[in-house]
């Protein structure tokens, strides 16, 4: 795997949240709530991670009554490896949730 540049703090937050429970499939909305990202910021991150082979996405098979299946996400081995790599590095700055920073992330 080649790393060209450090991911944005928002991407690192998503990676860290997914890496915290590597075997667990997560829903998009609750993941966004956990890392403090709205849909407009979260989904581009998920799409990009998926395109780079860092994220597995699948549809729910165990359905709750009256609810359509939802998309589930978890890190691939490569994603978990990348998350571990960045977790071991010193953090540049804490993630703050200002609008400008969220916009500049993508």
């Amino acid at each position, binding site marked *: 795997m080649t790393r060209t540049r450090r991911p944005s703090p928002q991407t690192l937050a998503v990676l860290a949240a997914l890496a915290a429970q590597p075997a667990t499939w997560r829903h*998009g*909305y609750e993941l966004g709530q956990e890392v403090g990202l709205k*849909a*407009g910021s979260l989904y581009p991150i998920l799409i990009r991670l998926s395109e780079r082979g860092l994220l597995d*996405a699948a549809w729910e098979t165990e359905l709750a009554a009256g609810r359509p299946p939802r*998309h589930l996400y978890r890190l691939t081995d490569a994603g978990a490896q990348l998350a571990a790599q960045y977790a071991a590095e010193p953090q540049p700055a804490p993630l703050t949730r200002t609008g400008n920073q969220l916009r500049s992330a993508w």
Partner: protein
Amino acid sequence: MTPGERLIAAASRLLPRAYRDWGSAMAAELRTIDGRAERWRFTVGCLRVLFTRPAVVRAVGYPVLTAVTLGLALWWSGRFAYAPLRIGAVAVVASLVALGWLGRVRGPLGPVRSGATARGVRTGGYALVALWTVGLLTAMGGKDPVGAGAAAPVVGAVSVAYLAAFLILTARRTPERVLLAALAGGGGPVLLWTLMVAVFPPIPAGASAALLLIGIGMAGAAAIAGPELRLVAIGGAGMLACLLLWSLVVALSAYAPATLIPDLAAPALSAADDLAQSRSEIQDPYVGLIVLGGALALLPIAAALWTAGRRAAGTRALG
């Protein structure tokens, strides 16, 4: 289905098939969210994501751009009272727009090669050809509407040749070396000519020096390009040099200091009239460049068509 889900589903349909799951995922997630305000916030966020995907921007952006361009062409042509000129002007713009669409599909004209150079040259080509076409028809229509109406098909054909050459040069199918050779062979003569005018003013009253430099540039492009699609590089370099030099002469004739303008007017005029007249007349010796460039643009077109024909024959033979 809630209105939010409907909106997300509609936007998802603009995505390529491989991405539509993401739209469905957003719509499914939306159904689990409590609270009307939160649901709308989530919907707006999802729509922002979907409408800013490059594939959606392209799918929506090009038709919008086409409609806006044709609308502007109708508005611009309204200045011409002479109906054949009005129709001709709109037809010229429509031909360029149609060619632009061909530049998006796989073939000799497109799609555009990835990278800033090809995209920059293609964008610059669109801008130059549009400026030249609109500027020329506007100027001709102001002086002689009947003549301009008769000339509109010729102007259209030359503009189409120029734009087609730009599209071929920057298409994915054209090797990058050919594009770079055409850029060097086309830009080099313009830089040298500009340097010559700056060091030895004024602007030459004839186009011989420009033609000589264009010839040298084309030979240089042939040497740089290598054997594959050499004609595309030669014609591209010549076309580019002619268009840029002509544009430069027009710009200099209007905005350059008086020291760069040769005295081409009758001696009886006042100094101011003399300068104004000379500014107008200095363009005349260079007008032929635009026709020469249009003719040279036919070289890349012929080479691309010939290559496409050979490819098709090869595919048929394999099949």
